[in-house]
């Protein structure tokens, strides 16, 4: 396959972003045109991704800087799905606030190209630039409601900490590169396997890389940008930010730590275990005290990072299931969290409505279907069967349990910490249910009309949430293939 054919999905995605930009300039303010172009284009990108990845083999291009394997295909499709959901949920929120959809779609698509490239990187330089391509649009999206003080405040904090962590990450990258003399992931892996001497510079480089990545996935104690950025952003953006960049950052972790630095897993797994415990526990504890649903979901997304790190830790001590669990968790989390944020956004359809808990009071009576769907997403986030969130959590815990029986006692502790956290999380997720069904609103709130697109997206998300919980088989196969691509 020629280089160009191999990067077709990425090239198409870039082309799509430009096309949407052109459409928006040619017919300013035509939401339908933007939406249609974007969704059809995303379908084509997805088709190209499937086509390129259909062989299931590992294909490289550009002298081995670009790679397509089942992991790439899985992650690319996941990103495309995330962006598609975000685009579908966005208009209902943007329209009443007078925010344009065109630029939103363009910037979002650029972010998607970055995320797609991360998962296809076989070179540290490409990996870094792809990372920037994913996060820079994120900063802009966070500040998308630019006349709103909260949105810009979140954006500047997100930007400053993001850039700071990028610099740290890059410094670590430079040292690894200088020490091993190559930026190709394969070569790094080979050099490390071949016993490249462990030196102070390598340890330091590793420390910088870990810190930078911990910022990107918002692991405690590097999480403090999350709540402000999430709460301030326009709600559809929050949904995207809590899922897209997180999955993207985990893609980075997989390519960098699991693949390139895989031979050093014994060194970094200790850090991952500590991070996982801190992240789950503190994320949950702080989420418990929140009275704003958006902020609560932000902190809970920190906790979910912790569960995913459990999978990573289990993989690092030798269980492939950990990696599979991590990927499954990523997909499940994307669906249920986007759904939950979509409901929050739908409630805020009228400009001026906050996402405080009080807004949810009486929703069960006011808009029963919305409340029922929200309940489903919240139950899934809690991890109650038969939902996607349950199976994902069970999978990750299974991996940790396996690892602990294989002799790693720390993983056993991690599994127990994870389930206790899941139980604690029930408290704040169910509190929203309490407000929706068991509290009467302080003031009368009007029933809102929601777009058909929003309903379509919500139904799709809820159906996926249930299917991923009840019939995990097909996705398990995909995830297994993806995990074996880098983890064997």
């Amino acid at each position, binding site marked *: 396959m020629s280089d160009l054919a191999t990067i077709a999905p990425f090239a198409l995605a870039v082309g799509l972003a430009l096309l949407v930009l052109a459409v928006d300039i040619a017919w300013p303010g035509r939401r339908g045109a933007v939406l249609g172009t974007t969704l059809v284009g995303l379908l084509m990108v997805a088709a190209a991704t499937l086509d390129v990845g259909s062989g299931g083999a590992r294909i490289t291009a550009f002298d081995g800087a670009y790679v397509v394997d089942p992991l790439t295909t899985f992650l690319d499709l996941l990103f495309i799905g995330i962006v598609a959901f975000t685009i579908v949920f966005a208009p209902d929120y943007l329209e009443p606030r007078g925010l344009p959809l065109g630029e939103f779609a363009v910037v979002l698509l650029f972010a998607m190209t970055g995320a797609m490239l991360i998962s296809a990187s076989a070179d540290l330089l490409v990996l870094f630039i792809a990372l920037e391509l994913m996060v820079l649009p994120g900063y802009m999206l966070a500040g998308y409601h630019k006349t709103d003080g909260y949105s810009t405040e979140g954006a500047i904090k997100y930007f400053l900490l993001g850039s700071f962590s990028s610099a740290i990450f890059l410094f670590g990258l430079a040292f690894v590169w200088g020490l091993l003399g190559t930026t190709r992931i394969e070569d790094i892996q080979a050099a490390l396997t071949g016993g490249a001497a462990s030196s102070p510079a390598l340890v330091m480089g590793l420390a910088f890389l870990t810190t930078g990545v911990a910022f990107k996935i918002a692991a405690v104690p590097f999480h403090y940008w999350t709540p402000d950025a999430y709460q301030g952003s326009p709600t559809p953006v929050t949904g995207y930010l809590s899922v897209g960049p997180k999955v993207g950052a985990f893609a980075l972790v997989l390519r960098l730590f699991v693949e390139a630095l895989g031979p050093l897993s014994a060194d970094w797994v200790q850090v991952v275990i500590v991070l996982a415990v801190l992240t789950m526990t503190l994320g949950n504890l702080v989420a418990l005290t929140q009275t704003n649903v958006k902020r609560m979901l932000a902190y809970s997304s920190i906790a979910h990072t912790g569960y995913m790190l459990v999978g990573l830790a289990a993989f690092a001590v030798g269980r492939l299931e950990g990696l599979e669990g991590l990927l499954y968790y990523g997909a499940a989390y994307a669906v249920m969290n986007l759904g939950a944020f979509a409901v929050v956004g739908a409630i805020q359809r009228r400009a001026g409505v906050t996402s405080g808990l009080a807004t949810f009071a009486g929703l069960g009576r006011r808009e029963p279907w919305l409340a029922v769907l929200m309940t489903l997403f919240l139950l899934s986030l809690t*991890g109650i069967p038969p939902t996607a969130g*349950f199976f994902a959590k069970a999978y990750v*815990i*299974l991996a940790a349990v396996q690892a602990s*029986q294989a002799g790693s006692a720390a993983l056993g502790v991690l599994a127990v910490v994870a389930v206790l956290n899941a*139980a604690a999380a029930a408290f704040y997720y*169910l509190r929203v249910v309490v407000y929706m*069904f068991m509290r009467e609103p302080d003031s009368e709130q009007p029933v809102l009309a929601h777009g058909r697109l929003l309903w379509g997206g919500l139904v799709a998300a809820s159906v996926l949430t249930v299917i991923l919980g009840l019939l995990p088989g097909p996705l398990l*196969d995909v995830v297994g293939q993806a995990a074996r691509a880098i983890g064997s």
Partner: protein
Amino acid sequence: MADLPLLSIVTFAPLVGALVIAFAPARWARLLALATALATWLVSLYAVTRFDPALSGFQLVEEVSWIPLFGIEYKLGTDGLALVLVVLTTTLTWISILASFKPIQTRIKEYMVSFLILEVGMVGVFLALDTFLFYIFWEVVLVPMYLIIGIWGGANRIYATIKFVLYTLVGSLLMLVAILATAFAFQEANGGSWVGAFDFEVLRAHAATAGFGDALQMLAFAAFFLAFAIKIPMVPFHTWLPDAHVEAPTAGSVILAGILLKLGGYGFIRYNLALYPDAAQAYAPLIVLLSVIAIIYGAIVAMVQPDLKKLVAYSSVSHMGFVTLGIFIFQPQAMDGAILQMVNHGLITGALFLLVGVIYERTHDRTIAKMGGLAGLTPVYAAVFGFFVFASAGLPGLSGFVGEFLALLGTFVVNPWAAGVAALVMILGAAYLLWMFQRVVFGEPSEFLLGIRSHLSDMTPTEILTLAPLGALVVVFGLFPGILLDLIGGSVTSALDAVGHGSAISVDPLVPAVGLGIVVAAVIVQLANALFGGGGAGEDQPGEAAPEGAS
């Protein structure tokens, strides 16, 4: 007919009904729900006729591969124990739905849907033969119960529901870890193949032959035990129960006491004994001790409750203590007794909660001190109430007696001390129940009741209809416990085969002595509370008081 997936129908018929109700007009919700519950009940009765008690092992098994990667299956099957409990469930469900017709006046549709989904979960727990499937049903039970208490419950319902959910989730999630660990241990032993790793029958066979490792057994047993002990509930994991009962609507209480508590006892017999027999032996003395404490503690705390519903709730703690005692003494009679006790407690306590509901409907109060002289005001009610109070107190000839008696008999063989203490409590139980009955029913009509004389009608035909089948069963099972014993004989034998018949757990006489000491201390605290604090067992923290009144 033989090919009909009978158990799946019993399990999922309520779900179908729930879906229909969700999309049907609200005014049909009640009748549709009742029809669904009755149909399910009839199917479950038909399943009983298809069941052959003479055969050992599981019957009517249905098996479909579900998540082949891990050997997880959709597998249902039943033995006598499960079948008895399923029929108890389907029976109480339709009675509860019928009993909810009048009390539940808001969001009827949502209520009926929740109730039917609850039934799916409960029946599924009893019938699942795959540990993963079992866990899913186990958690499915949680959500509708949460909604039933949280939406249609009393003033302090939000506090109660959160407590209920957190207790239950902590236990069940640790159980999930244990389920996964067990499956993985099996997979390792099985040469890396996942086939059968979640299949209960395969696991049980493995436990009986090769056996699981000691460390796994001890930890996994503890995790399962915690989940079930919270559900049953055993002292000291019981504190959610009084809150949940007090706040739950009547039908919720009936199901909670009648079925949900049995999930714990069923779990002990089905999973703890069969999968981790060595650990069961090791833990048994401790559990017997806890059981004796629960029996005494529950009875004494019940005695000082000022609230009718709380009294019945605490009596449940005491009665369920006989169940755990009977199970973990590893004696055939005792286990027979434990299972009978589960069924009978379901019938009797269910009825008692219904009766408390009847009086609450009329008076909007449950304080014992405000009652009195009901015998004169509502004679039918007083008579029915008396019947079930006597049944609960263990009057010979009624079913409550049989279970407790058998459990004590079995215990006596192994551990006369424990049996002796528990027997004393039977008398105590009679005492507090009869004292309560005396205060409520006899004597002069109280000021309070006279004040609302006009609302104080006697029982309606619907109410009698809900209680009549329970009463009939109490008499039948009291006189002919053999019906049940025949059905469950196979289950008891196989459970005891796993763990070792009548294994001589020599419980030190110290054990009941220590238990008695703890209880005496508890009694003093309770009495002090009752005298000076006016409150209950220290569990009525103010909690998260809901701003609005009961709905």
